[in-house]
Protein backbone atom coordinates (compact mmCIF):
# COMPACT_ATOMS: atom_id res chain seq x y z
CA UNK A 1 0.00 0.00 0.00
CA UNK A 2 1.25 3.46 -0.81
CA UNK A 3 2.02 5.78 2.04
CA UNK A 4 -0.86 8.26 1.40
CA UNK A 5 -3.28 5.30 1.25
CA UNK A 6 -2.02 4.03 4.58
CA UNK A 7 -2.43 7.51 6.05
CA UNK A 8 -5.99 7.79 4.73
CA UNK A 9 -6.85 4.38 6.15
CA UNK A 10 -5.40 5.34 9.53
CA UNK A 11 -7.29 8.64 9.54
CA UNK A 12 -10.55 6.80 8.80
CA UNK A 13 -9.81 4.40 11.66
CA UNK A 14 -9.18 7.33 14.00
CA UNK A 15 -12.39 8.96 12.79
CA UNK A 16 -14.28 5.74 13.53
CA UNK A 17 -12.85 5.65 17.07
CA UNK A 18 -13.78 9.30 17.63
CA UNK A 19 -17.34 8.68 16.39
CA UNK A 20 -17.61 5.85 18.91
CA UNK A 21 -16.06 8.00 21.67
CA UNK A 22 -18.52 10.84 21.04
CA UNK A 23 -21.40 8.39 21.25
CA UNK A 24 -20.12 6.66 24.37
CA UNK A 25 -19.26 9.89 26.18
CA UNK A 26 -22.96 10.68 25.89
CA UNK A 27 -23.54 7.60 28.03
CA UNK A 28 -20.68 8.52 30.38
CA UNK A 29 -22.12 12.01 30.86
CA UNK A 30 -25.54 10.67 31.71
CA UNK A 31 -24.24 8.19 34.31
CA UNK A 32 -21.27 9.87 35.90
CA UNK A 33 -23.35 11.96 38.28
CA UNK A 34 -22.98 15.59 39.29
CA UNK A 35 -19.78 17.34 40.30
CA UNK A 36 -16.25 17.46 38.90
CA UNK A 37 -16.63 14.19 36.99
CA UNK A 38 -19.61 15.60 35.09
CA UNK A 39 -17.57 18.63 34.03
CA UNK A 40 -14.71 16.36 33.04
CA UNK A 41 -17.03 14.24 30.93
CA UNK A 42 -18.38 17.35 29.23
CA UNK A 43 -14.88 18.64 28.46
CA UNK A 44 -13.81 15.27 27.08
CA UNK A 45 -16.98 15.04 24.98
CA UNK A 46 -16.23 18.44 23.43
CA UNK A 47 -12.60 17.45 22.81
CA UNK A 48 -13.63 14.27 20.99
CA UNK A 49 -16.19 16.12 18.88
CA UNK A 50 -13.51 18.60 17.83
CA UNK A 51 -11.09 15.77 16.97
CA UNK A 52 -13.82 13.98 15.04
CA UNK A 53 -14.57 17.07 12.95
CA UNK A 54 -10.89 17.72 12.29
CA UNK A 55 -10.38 14.11 11.18
CA UNK A 56 -13.36 14.33 8.81
CA UNK A 57 -11.75 17.39 7.23
CA UNK A 58 -8.43 15.53 6.96
CA UNK A 59 -10.11 12.62 5.19
CA UNK A 60 -11.49 15.08 2.62
CA UNK A 61 -8.10 16.75 2.29
CA UNK A 62 -6.62 13.34 1.49
CA UNK A 63 -9.24 12.82 -1.22
CA UNK A 64 -11.48 10.44 0.70
CA UNK A 65 -15.06 10.47 1.94
CA UNK A 66 -15.34 10.51 5.74
CA UNK A 67 -17.00 7.44 7.21
CA UNK A 68 -20.28 8.32 8.91
CA UNK A 69 -21.07 7.49 12.52
CA UNK A 70 -23.08 4.37 13.23
CA UNK A 71 -26.57 5.02 14.64
CA UNK A 72 -25.51 3.27 17.86
CA UNK A 73 -22.49 1.51 19.29
CA UNK A 74 -22.27 -1.57 21.47
CA UNK A 75 -20.69 -0.69 24.80
CA UNK A 76 -17.99 -3.08 26.04
CA UNK A 77 -19.87 -3.66 29.31
CA UNK A 78 -23.09 -2.51 31.01
CA UNK A 79 -22.91 1.01 32.44
CA UNK A 80 -25.48 1.18 35.25
CA UNK A 81 -23.66 3.60 37.57
CA UNK A 82 -20.97 6.25 37.98
CA UNK A 83 -18.16 3.76 38.66
CA UNK A 84 -18.91 1.90 35.43
CA UNK A 85 -19.16 5.22 33.57
CA UNK A 86 -15.66 6.14 34.72
CA UNK A 87 -14.37 2.75 33.68
CA UNK A 88 -16.00 3.17 30.28
CA UNK A 89 -14.44 6.61 29.81
CA UNK A 90 -10.99 5.16 30.56
CA UNK A 91 -11.52 2.33 28.07
CA UNK A 92 -12.64 4.83 25.42
CA UNK A 93 -9.46 6.81 25.89
CA UNK A 94 -7.35 3.64 25.62
CA UNK A 95 -8.99 2.83 22.30
CA UNK A 96 -8.58 6.33 20.97
CA UNK A 97 -4.92 6.27 22.02
CA UNK A 98 -4.50 3.06 20.02
CA UNK A 99 -5.78 4.49 16.76
CA UNK A 100 -3.69 7.63 17.16
CA UNK A 101 -0.49 5.66 17.69
CA UNK A 102 -1.24 3.91 14.40
CA UNK A 103 -1.88 7.25 12.75
CA UNK A 104 1.48 8.53 14.00
CA UNK A 105 3.11 5.60 12.23
CA UNK A 106 1.16 6.04 9.00
CA UNK A 107 1.37 9.82 8.73
CA UNK A 108 4.11 12.37 8.21
CA UNK A 109 4.54 16.05 8.90
CA UNK A 110 1.78 18.06 10.61
CA UNK A 111 -0.67 15.15 10.57
CA UNK A 112 1.80 12.99 12.48
CA UNK A 113 2.42 15.77 14.99
CA UNK A 114 -1.30 16.27 15.50
CA UNK A 115 -1.85 12.53 15.97
CA UNK A 116 0.90 12.48 18.61
CA UNK A 117 -0.78 15.37 20.39
CA UNK A 118 -4.14 13.58 20.32
CA UNK A 119 -2.47 10.45 21.71
CA UNK A 120 -0.97 12.48 24.54
CA UNK A 121 -4.34 14.05 25.40
CA UNK A 122 -6.05 10.66 25.39
CA UNK A 123 -3.36 9.20 27.66
CA UNK A 124 -3.75 12.03 30.16
CA UNK A 125 -7.55 11.71 30.15
CA UNK A 126 -7.21 7.94 30.69
CA UNK A 127 -5.15 8.45 33.86
CA UNK A 128 -7.56 11.13 35.05
CA UNK A 129 -10.41 8.64 34.81
CA UNK A 130 -8.51 5.66 36.11
CA UNK A 131 -6.04 7.16 38.55
CA UNK A 132 -3.25 5.09 37.02
CA UNK A 133 -1.54 4.62 33.68
CA UNK A 134 0.35 2.18 31.53
CA UNK A 135 3.96 2.39 30.40
CA UNK A 136 3.05 2.53 26.71
CA UNK A 137 -0.29 4.25 26.04
CA UNK A 138 -1.76 3.30 22.68
CA UNK A 139 0.57 0.33 22.17
CA UNK A 140 -1.65 -2.66 22.93
CA UNK A 141 1.16 -5.10 22.09
CA UNK A 142 3.29 -3.68 24.94
CA UNK A 143 0.58 -3.18 27.53
CA UNK A 144 -0.28 -6.74 28.62
CA UNK A 145 -2.84 -5.56 31.16
CA UNK A 146 -0.29 -4.02 33.48
CA UNK A 147 -1.28 -0.83 35.18
CA UNK A 148 0.72 1.52 37.30
CA UNK A 149 -1.34 2.30 40.29
CA UNK A 150 -0.32 5.46 41.95
CA UNK A 151 -1.92 5.09 45.31
Amino acid at each position, binding site marked *: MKRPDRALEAVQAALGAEHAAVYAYGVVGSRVGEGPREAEARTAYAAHRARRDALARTVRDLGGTPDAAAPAYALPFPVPDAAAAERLAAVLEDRVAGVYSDL*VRAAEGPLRTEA*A*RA*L*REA*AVRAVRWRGSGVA*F*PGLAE*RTRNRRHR*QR
Partner: protein
Amino acid sequence: MIKHKETGVGRTGEGHAGATRRRVLAAGAVAAVAGCSSPARESNPLPAGIQEIRAEEARRQLLAAHSTVLRERYDAVIARHPQLAGRLGALRAAVAEHEQALLPGDVRPTASPSGTAPASGVTASKAASASPSGAAAPVSGSGVPADPDTALKDLAAAERRTSDSFAEALVEAEPELARLLASIAAAGAAHAYLLTQAPAEGAR
Protein backbone atom coordinates in the same frame (compact mmCIF):
# COMPACT_ATOMS: atom_id res chain seq x y z
CA MET B 1 20.52 16.72 12.82
CA ILE B 2 22.94 15.20 15.33
CA LYS B 3 23.77 18.65 16.66
CA HIS B 4 20.09 19.37 17.05
CA LYS B 5 19.57 16.19 19.08
CA GLU B 6 22.48 17.01 21.32
CA THR B 7 20.89 20.34 22.11
CA GLY B 8 17.71 18.55 23.07
CA VAL B 9 19.54 16.22 25.41
CA GLY B 10 21.41 19.09 26.98
CA ARG B 11 18.13 20.70 27.82
CA THR B 12 16.86 17.55 29.50
CA GLY B 13 20.09 17.16 31.44
CA GLU B 14 19.99 20.71 32.75
CA GLY B 15 20.71 20.95 36.44
CA HIS B 16 21.46 17.25 36.76
CA ALA B 17 24.53 15.65 38.23
CA GLY B 18 27.76 15.69 36.24
CA ALA B 19 27.79 11.91 35.93
CA THR B 20 24.43 11.99 34.23
CA ARG B 21 25.56 14.69 31.86
CA ARG B 22 28.65 12.70 31.00
CA ARG B 23 26.57 9.67 30.20
CA VAL B 24 24.34 11.64 27.88
CA LEU B 25 27.37 13.18 26.23
CA ALA B 26 28.83 9.71 25.81
CA ALA B 27 25.67 8.65 24.01
CA GLY B 28 26.03 11.75 21.86
CA ALA B 29 29.57 10.72 21.04
CA VAL B 30 28.30 7.34 19.86
CA ALA B 31 25.83 9.13 17.66
CA ALA B 32 28.58 11.28 16.26
CA VAL B 33 30.78 8.27 15.61
CA ALA B 34 28.08 6.25 13.93
CA GLY B 35 26.35 9.05 12.12
CA CYS B 36 29.17 11.12 10.72
CA SER B 37 32.04 10.26 8.49
CA SER B 38 35.24 9.44 10.32
CA PRO B 39 38.74 8.37 9.33
CA ALA B 40 37.90 4.80 10.32
CA ARG B 41 34.96 4.74 7.98
CA GLU B 42 36.97 6.11 5.09
CA SER B 43 39.67 3.48 5.44
CA ASN B 44 37.14 0.72 5.99
CA PRO B 45 34.00 1.61 4.03
CA LEU B 46 30.77 -0.13 5.03
CA PRO B 47 27.85 -0.96 2.77
CA ALA B 48 25.27 1.84 2.80
CA GLY B 49 22.69 -0.38 4.52
CA ILE B 50 24.95 -1.04 7.49
CA GLN B 51 25.78 2.63 7.83
CA GLU B 52 22.05 3.33 7.95
CA ILE B 53 21.54 0.76 10.68
CA ARG B 54 24.39 2.22 12.74
CA ALA B 55 23.01 5.72 12.41
CA GLU B 56 19.61 4.44 13.50
CA GLU B 57 21.13 2.62 16.49
CA ALA B 58 22.99 5.76 17.48
CA ARG B 59 19.79 7.79 17.28
CA ARG B 60 18.03 5.31 19.51
CA GLN B 61 20.84 5.36 22.07
CA LEU B 62 20.64 9.11 22.17
CA LEU B 63 16.88 8.95 22.73
CA ALA B 64 17.25 6.25 25.40
CA ALA B 65 19.64 8.58 27.23
CA HIS B 66 16.72 10.96 27.78
CA SER B 67 14.91 8.21 29.68
CA THR B 68 18.12 7.27 31.52
CA VAL B 69 18.45 10.83 32.79
CA LEU B 70 14.82 10.82 33.87
CA ARG B 71 15.06 7.44 35.61
CA GLU B 72 18.09 8.65 37.53
CA ARG B 73 16.05 11.67 38.60
CA TYR B 74 13.48 9.27 40.06
CA ASP B 75 16.27 7.35 41.83
CA ALA B 76 17.63 10.55 43.29
CA VAL B 77 14.22 11.68 44.55
CA ILE B 78 13.50 8.25 46.05
CA ALA B 79 16.93 8.23 47.73
CA ARG B 80 16.29 11.65 49.25
CA HIS B 81 12.63 10.97 50.13
CA PRO B 82 12.23 7.22 50.79
CA GLN B 83 8.63 7.79 51.87
CA LEU B 84 7.81 8.55 48.21
CA ALA B 85 9.13 5.18 47.01
CA GLY B 86 5.68 3.59 46.99
CA ARG B 87 4.15 6.40 45.04
CA LEU B 88 7.01 6.73 42.55
CA GLY B 89 7.98 3.09 42.09
CA ALA B 90 5.57 2.31 39.27
CA LEU B 91 6.34 5.53 37.42
CA ARG B 92 10.06 4.90 37.69
CA ALA B 93 9.55 1.36 36.43
CA ALA B 94 7.67 2.71 33.41
CA VAL B 95 10.54 5.08 32.63
CA ALA B 96 12.98 2.15 32.86
CA GLU B 97 10.79 0.31 30.36
CA HIS B 98 10.92 3.30 28.04
CA GLU B 99 14.68 3.28 28.29
CA GLN B 100 14.84 -0.40 27.35
CA ALA B 101 12.35 -0.03 24.51
CA LEU B 102 14.34 2.80 22.98
CA LEU B 103 17.72 1.09 23.10
CA PRO B 104 18.60 -0.73 19.91
CA GLY B 105 17.87 -4.43 20.27
CA ASP B 106 21.44 -5.57 19.80
CA VAL B 107 23.93 -3.10 21.19
CA ARG B 108 27.43 -4.37 21.70
CA PRO B 109 30.55 -2.36 22.42
CA THR B 110 32.23 -4.06 19.48
CA ALA B 111 29.52 -3.02 17.04
CA SER B 112 31.58 -0.07 15.86
CA PRO B 113 35.35 -0.49 15.51
CA SER B 114 36.03 3.15 16.31
CA GLY B 115 33.30 3.54 18.91
CA THR B 116 34.34 1.02 21.53
CA ALA B 117 35.05 3.43 24.37
CA PRO B 118 31.86 5.51 24.37
CA ALA B 119 29.70 2.52 23.49
CA SER B 120 30.88 0.60 26.54
CA GLY B 121 29.68 3.44 28.76
CA VAL B 122 26.22 3.19 27.25
CA THR B 123 26.19 -0.57 27.61
CA ALA B 124 27.05 -0.19 31.28
CA SER B 125 24.04 2.06 31.73
CA LYS B 126 21.88 -0.49 29.95
CA ALA B 127 23.07 -3.20 32.33
CA ALA B 128 22.37 -0.98 35.32
CA SER B 129 18.85 -0.24 34.18
CA ALA B 130 18.21 -3.90 33.47
CA SER B 131 18.54 -4.73 37.14
CA PRO B 132 15.24 -5.21 39.02
CA SER B 133 13.59 -1.99 40.11
CA GLY B 134 14.88 -0.87 43.46
CA ALA B 135 18.12 -2.79 43.05
CA ALA B 136 19.88 0.02 41.21
CA ALA B 137 23.19 1.30 42.48
CA PRO B 138 22.78 3.70 45.40
CA VAL B 139 22.07 7.17 44.17
CA SER B 140 22.76 10.20 46.27
CA GLY B 141 19.81 12.50 46.72
CA SER B 142 21.95 15.59 46.29
CA GLY B 143 20.35 18.26 44.17
CA VAL B 144 16.88 17.06 45.15
CA PRO B 145 14.74 19.63 46.99
CA ALA B 146 14.37 18.95 50.72
CA ASP B 147 10.63 19.56 50.45
CA PRO B 148 8.93 16.44 49.04
CA ASP B 149 6.21 18.44 47.27
CA THR B 150 8.83 20.56 45.54
CA ALA B 151 10.74 17.41 44.60
CA LEU B 152 7.57 16.00 43.01
CA LYS B 153 6.98 19.23 41.13
CA ASP B 154 10.54 19.13 39.82
CA LEU B 155 10.04 15.54 38.74
CA ALA B 156 6.83 16.50 36.92
CA ALA B 157 8.72 19.27 35.13
CA ALA B 158 11.44 16.78 34.14
CA GLU B 159 8.75 14.43 32.78
CA ARG B 160 7.28 17.27 30.74
CA ARG B 161 10.66 18.29 29.34
CA THR B 162 11.45 14.71 28.37
CA SER B 163 8.01 14.28 26.84
CA ASP B 164 8.52 17.40 24.75
CA SER B 165 11.91 16.13 23.55
CA PHE B 166 10.33 12.88 22.35
CA ALA B 167 7.46 14.73 20.70
CA GLU B 168 10.02 16.78 18.83
CA ALA B 169 12.12 13.76 17.85
CA LEU B 170 9.20 11.77 16.45
CA VAL B 171 8.68 14.26 13.62
CA GLU B 172 11.77 13.00 11.78
CA ALA B 173 11.82 9.40 13.07
CA GLU B 174 11.09 6.35 10.95
CA PRO B 175 7.43 5.26 11.28
CA GLU B 176 7.74 2.49 13.89
CA LEU B 177 10.08 4.54 16.09
CA ALA B 178 7.76 7.55 15.72
CA ARG B 179 4.89 5.45 17.05
CA LEU B 180 6.97 4.34 20.04
CA LEU B 181 8.13 7.89 20.74
CA ALA B 182 4.56 9.20 20.59
CA SER B 183 3.52 6.60 23.14
CA ILE B 184 6.42 7.39 25.46
CA ALA B 185 5.78 11.12 25.13
CA ALA B 186 2.13 10.48 26.03
CA ALA B 187 3.17 8.40 29.05
CA GLY B 188 5.39 11.26 30.20
CA ALA B 189 2.52 13.72 30.03
CA ALA B 190 0.37 11.28 32.02
CA HIS B 191 3.17 10.90 34.59
CA ALA B 192 3.43 14.66 34.94
CA TYR B 193 -0.31 14.76 35.64
CA LEU B 194 -0.07 11.99 38.27
CA LEU B 195 2.92 13.66 39.95
CA THR B 196 1.06 16.91 40.41
CA GLN B 197 -2.09 15.28 41.80
CA ALA B 198 -2.71 14.51 45.45
CA PRO B 199 -2.04 10.78 45.94
CA ALA B 200 -5.42 9.90 47.48
CA GLU B 201 -8.73 10.21 45.72
CA GLY B 202 -10.41 11.91 48.67
CA ALA B 203 -7.72 14.57 48.81
CA ARG B 204 -8.79 16.19 45.57
